[in-house]
C-alpha cells in the first residue's frame, strides 16, 4: 500500500511541470508571476529585517530579559513560518491541482497508516524542538544577572534582598515594591529600616532607576487585578490582590521606557500608564536624596497642619483631597 502510494506521489509530482508547460501556457505565465512575487516577498523579508522588525517581533532593547524573549519569539516565528508555508502550500497545491476541471475522477483512498503515523511523529518532533529551544533560553529570561560595576553601589544592607522572587547570584539588587491601584502604580524604594515602610521614598506613575543596576520588582495590588508591563523591559506580570508577583530588569541605556496596565481594571484601565526612567547612578542618588527630602518636608508640614485642620473625625481622606 505504502509503496504504491509512494510511486503515486512521485508520479504526480513528476508529471506536474510537464502538464503545466505543454497544455496551459496561460497558467505557466501565472505561475511565473506567482514565483516572482514570492521571490520578491522572500527577498524583502531577508534583505530588510530591520524594516520588518517592528512589524513581526515584540518590543525589546531595554533589558536582557526582553531581548531574550524577543530572540525566543524569533525562533518560534522561524519554525512557525516553515510549518505555515509547508501546510498552506500543500493546501493551495491540492485545491489548485485537484479541481474537478483538472481531475474529474477522485481516487477512492481511505487513508494510509504509515503516512498518518509519519505526520503525527513529525508534528511531535517540531514541538520537541520548540520545547528544547525554550528550555535553553529560559534561564536568561528568568534569572537576573548581577549588577555591573558601573551601576549603583549595592553594598548597603537595604540591597541585600531576602525571600521572594529570584535574585542575582550575589543576592543584591535594588528591590522596588510595585503596588497597583485603580488607576495608578505606586513604587516604594528600599531603605535602612525594613520594619517601617511608612518613611520610605516612594513615587507614583514614574519609576526612576539607576542604569547598569539589577532592579527586582515585588508586584502587588491593593484593589483589583492589574498587570505590570513595560514592553521593552520584559513581559507582563499580573498584580493580583493577596499575592506577590516578581520580575526584574537591568537597563544599560538611560531613557524613558513606557508601558501601561495590561489587565482590565475598570473604566480608566486605558489610562493607567506605567513608566520607567533610567538615569545614571549619580543622577539617581541625587533624585533619591531630593525625593527623600521632599517627602520628609511634606510629612512634617502635614504633621504640623493636621491639628489645625480639626478633629480626627473631619480628617480628610485621600479621596477627598484629590481634585
Amino acid at each position, binding site marked *: 500500500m505504502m509503496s504504491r502510494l509512494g510511486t503515486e506521489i512521485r508520479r504526480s509530482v513528476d508529471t506536474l511541470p510537464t502538464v503545466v508547460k505543454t497544455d496551459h501556457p496561460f497558467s505557466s505565465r501565472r505561475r511565473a508571476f506567482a514565483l516572482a512575487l514570492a521571490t520578491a516577498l522572500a527577498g524583502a523579508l531577508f534583505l530588510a529585517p530591520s524594516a520588518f522588525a*517592528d512589524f*513581526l*517581533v*515584540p*518590543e525589546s532593547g531595554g533589558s536582557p530579559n*526582553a531581548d531574550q*524573549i524577543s530572540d*525566543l*519569539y524569533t525562533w*518560534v516565528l522561524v519554525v*512557525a513560518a516553515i510549518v*505555515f508555508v509547508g*501546510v498552506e502550500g500543500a*493546501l493551495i497545491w*491540492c*485545491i489548485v491541482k*485537484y479541481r*474537478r476541471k483538472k*481531475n*474529474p475522477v*477522485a*481516487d*477512492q*483512498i*481511505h*487513508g*494510509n497508516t504509515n*503516512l*498518518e503515523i509519519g*505526520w503525527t511523529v513529525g*508534528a511531535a518532533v517540531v*514541538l520537541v524542538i*520548540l*520545547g528544547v529551544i525554550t528550555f535553553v*533560553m529560559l534561564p536568561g529570561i*528568568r534569572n537576573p544577572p548581577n549588577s555591573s560595576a558601573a551601576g549603583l553601589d549595592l553594598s548597603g544592607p537595604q540591597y541585600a534582598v531576602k525571600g521572594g522572587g529570584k535574585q542575582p547570584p550575589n543576592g543584591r539588587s535594588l528591590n522596588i515594591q510595585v503596588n497597583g491601584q485603580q488607576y495608578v502604580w505606586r513604587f516604594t524604594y528600599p531603605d535602612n529600616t525594613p520594619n517601617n515602610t511608612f518613611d520610605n521614598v516612594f513615587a507614583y506613575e514614574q519609576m526612576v532607576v539607576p542604569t547598569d543596576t539589577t532592579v527586582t520588582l515585588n508586584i502587588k495590588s491593593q*484593589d*483589583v487585578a492589574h*498587570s505590570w*508591563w513595560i*514592553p521593552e523591559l*520584559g*513581559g*507582563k*506580570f*499580573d498584580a*493580583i*490582590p*493577596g*499575592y506577590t*508577583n516578581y520580575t526584574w530588569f537591568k537597563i544599560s541605556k538611560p531613557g524613558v521606557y513606557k508601558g501601561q*496596565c*495590561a489587565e*482590565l481594571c*475598570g*473604566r*480608566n*484601565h*486605558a*489610562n493607567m500608564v506605567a513608566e520607567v526612567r533610567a538615569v545614571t547612578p549619580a543622577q539617581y542618588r541625587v533624585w533619591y536624596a531630593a525625593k527623600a527630602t521632599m517627602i520628609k518636608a511634606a510629612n512634617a508640614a502635614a504633621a504640623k497642619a493636621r491639628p489645625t485642620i480639626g478633629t480626627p473625625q473631619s480628617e480628610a481622606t485621600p479621596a477627598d483631597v484629590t481634585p
Partner: protein
Amino acid sequence: MATPQLTSTQTAVPQIVAHEVPTPQTGWMAWLTTTDHKKIGILYMVTTFVFFMMGGIEALLMRLQLSAADNTLLTPGTYNALFTMHGTTMIFLFVVPMMAGFGNYFVPLMIGARDMAFPKLNALSYWLLLSGGLVFYGSVFFNPPECGWTCYAPLSETAFSPTGGVDAWIFLIHLTGLSSLVGAVNFYATIVNMRAPGMGWGRLPLFVWTMLVYAVLLILALPVIAGAVTLLLTDRHFGTHFYDPSSGGSPLLWQHLFWFFGHPEVYIMVLPGFGIISEVIPVFARKPIFGYKAIAAATVVIAFLGLLVWAHHMFATPSPFIVLVFFMLGSFLIAVPTGVKMFNWIATMWRGSIEFKTPMLFAVGFLGIFLIGGITGIFLAVFPVDWQLTDTYFVVAHLHYVLMGGAVFAIFAGIYYWFPKITGKMLSEGLGKASFYTMFIGFNVTFLIQHTIGLDGMPRRIYEYPDVGHLELYNQISTVGSFILAIGILLTVINVIRSVKKGPVAGPDPWEGNTLEWFTTSPPPVNNFDVVPRVRSVEPMKDIRAQIERAEQERAEREPASV
C-alpha cells in the same frame, strides 16, 4: 395432538388505540409548543444568528471607537460594556448554541433516529437559552456589565461593580449553562442509544462524533463555571468572601475555576466546527475522508488534553514555575492531534475531484484561517513569549483566527451545506460565493494586522490609545476590514432570506451527500424516515446509491431477456 400453528395473519400485533388525536398546532403556536427536533433546531439557529448580528454590531461600534487615536465617540463605560456584551454574546449566545442548533437538527437525521431521546427536555433547552439571552440583554436598559466576558474577581465584586450588570451576566451563565447541560445529556443519550441498525462506533458520521465529544465536554466543564458564578453571586449579595483577598478569599480561585471551564469551552466551540468540515470536504472532494479513525480519535484526544491546559490563560499570574512548565507542555501536546486533523483534511482533498460550491469554499477558508490561529497558539503556549503577548491585540487576533476560523467559517459552511435540507430550497451560489470572498478578505484585513498591533504594545480592552508609531494606521486598517466582513455576513443573510421564498427546489440530495440526512426528503417529514436503512459503512448514502444502480442494472439485463 395438533399444536396450533401461528400463521402470519395470526401473529400478535401490538395495537395502538388513540382515543383522542390532538389537532396539530399551526402558526406561531406550532413553534411555541414544538418538541420536534427539527423545529427546535431551526429556533436555535435563527435565535443564535440574531444574537450573532447583535454581537457583530457591538464589534463594529468598538472598531469605530478605535478608528482614531484618542477618540471620544464612546465613553469608557460604554466601551467596556460593549466588549463584555460582544464576547459573552458570541460565546454563550452564538457559537455554542448554534452548534446545538445544528446538532439538534442533524444528529437524529444523521444517525437515522426519529427525534432526540428527550424531546420535551430539548424544548426546555431552547427556552432556557432564549431566556438567558433576554435576561442578559435586558441589562442594556439598566446597567450592562463592564467586566469583560471573563468577569475577573475582584473587579466583578460589588465593591468595584456595584450595579446589576454583573448579576445579569451571572444569570446568563446559569440559564445558558443549564440549557447546554440539559442539551448535552440529550445529545449523549440520543447518540448512544438511537443509532440506526448497523451504525457501530466505527460508522458514526464524524459530525456526530464531534457532537458526542461536545456533549461530554459540556457535562464536564459546565458544573465548574456554574459553581464559580454561584460563589460570585453569594460574594456579591450574601456576604461570603470566596474571591475577596482581604478576608482570606482568593482572586486566583476565580481565574482557575473560570478557565477550567473556559478552555474546554474553546473546544466545545470548535470541535463541532471540525465535524462540519469533516462532513463537507469529502462530499465536495468526491473522496472518502482520509483516516476516519484518526480524525475520530484526534477529536477525543483534543477533548481530553483540552481539560488539562486551562492555566495557559494565566501565565502572567503569580504561579509556581512547575505549573507554567506543565501547562506549556500540555498546550504543545494539543497541537499534535489538531495537526493530525489538519493533515487529514488536506489529504482528503489530495487526489480528489474538488467542486468549489459555497460550502466547500467556506471549508477551505476555514482550513486557511484556522491554521494561522493554531500556529499563533504555539507562540502563546511558550510562556516567556506569552508574557509579552498575553492581554494584547496579538491574543485578540489569535482567538479570532481560532474562533472565526474554527467556528464561524465552519458554521457558514454548515449553513450553505444544510440549508437545502432544512428548507428544501437551494441558496444562490453567486451570492454565496460573493459572501465568502467578502468575508474572507474582510476577516483577514481586520485581524491579521492585529497581531502587529499587539506586538507594538497595545493591550486589549482599552477604549483609547495614543498615536505612537503606526498604531492609528493599523487600527484604521482593522476597522475597514471589520466593515468588509460585516458586508460579507450581510450578503449571506440576504441570500438566506431570498432563497427561503424564491430558491430553486433542492430535492432530497442535491450534493450527493454521504450521510443519512440526505436519504429523506427536503425538508424531512415530522417522523424523519418511514424506513431506516441498514448502515454498512461510514458513507451509507454511497452504499444506497450503489445498491440502486445495481438493481437498475440487473433489471435492465433481465428485461431484454424476457422480451
